């Protein structure tokens, strides 16, 4: 960003428009949540995907306009992006373990198990 005497002052109507867009997205995410998209489109995680996608749209709007990234230097873009890339690394690589596990975890019994009340026959 070239140094100017004053900050980039964004007109108020942009903020109002962004707020309205965010609220519309909120309504949209509510509406989609109550339709069983998975059953309708025979998919596994469509409901979740749509919810996450809408959340990402909302986050983008906030980051670009409320947080002024649209008007900021490339370094700021890089740092804003890097955090999410790293989060993606953590999420993806951890999931590589869990979704490929041959065995699901089962439940553990408490380590402090008393012997059953009626002992099952003589040992």
């Amino acid at each position: 960003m070239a140094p100017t005497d004053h900050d980039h002052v964004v007109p108020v109507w942009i903020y109002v428009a962004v707020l309205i867009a965010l609220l519309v997205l909120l309504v949209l995410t509510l509406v989609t949540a109550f339709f069983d998209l998975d059953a309708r489109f025979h998919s596994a995680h469509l409901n979740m995907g749509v919810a996450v996608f809408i959340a990402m749209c909302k986050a983008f709007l906030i980051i670009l306009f409320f947080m002024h990234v649209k008007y900021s230097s490339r370094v700021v873009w890089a740092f804003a992006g890097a955090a999410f890339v790293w989060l993606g690394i953590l999420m993806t690589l951890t999931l590589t373990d869990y979704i490929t596990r041959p065995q699901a975890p089962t439940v553990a019994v408490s380590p402090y198990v008393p012997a059953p009340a009626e002992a099952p026959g003589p040992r």
Partner: protein
Amino acid sequence: MAEDLVIESPHSLVEHQFEDRFQQKEAATLGMWTFLATEVLFFGGLFVSYTIYRHQYPEAFRQGTLDMKWYLGAINTAVLLLSSFFMALAVRAAAVGSNPKIIRYLVLTIVVGSLFLCIKVTEYYIDYRERLVPALNFSEARPREDELGGFTRTFDKFDEWFDSHVSPPIGKAAVRPRNEQLFMLFYFIMTGVHATHMIIGIAVMLVLIWMAHRRRFSAEWHNPVECFGLYWHFVDIVWVFLFPALYLLRNP
């Protein structure tokens, strides 16, 4: 030593290590973004754990989601988006150098942010009455109606009415699955850490209001307001992801 500050104008302070206020401003902004990157991964650890457990115990976590009051969450989302909007206006007021406007919008932000916290506390109270708080009173058996108290029962009645009208039927279990406790644990930790961030934010805003009252900010120097704005918006973004993750994944 560091005390020799170069005074450019009464309201613009450039600390000795910087060449000029542009360098200072850019450094402050980049520093804040770096800190926010840290925060992303701080919450990220929770989101990853939550995702893994949701993957492991889909049904228990869905039952947990069904015990959430989604409409309170939705109202809260709108409230928080509104507070973010006011915060953006406060930063804009700072950019044009108007201290009274900064105060006005920061006060509005605090009011709306406090409303969010109030609703959150209400939810915690309902969860408590419904015996959903791990380590305190979580029970797999749902409490009887007469144990709920009138306030909580009202919400329950609405839930029942609403859930009976959605299709397909959501299939709320009569007895909570054991691992729902894990969901509730993450619910409380995630929303709790988020609320802690908001409380810290409100405290900082009070300081900023005081500074604005002293007319410390100007069009040339308002880094604290701007950086704090980034923080507040970030807290908002966290909620934007928390809301669908905790409240909305209801379908079987």
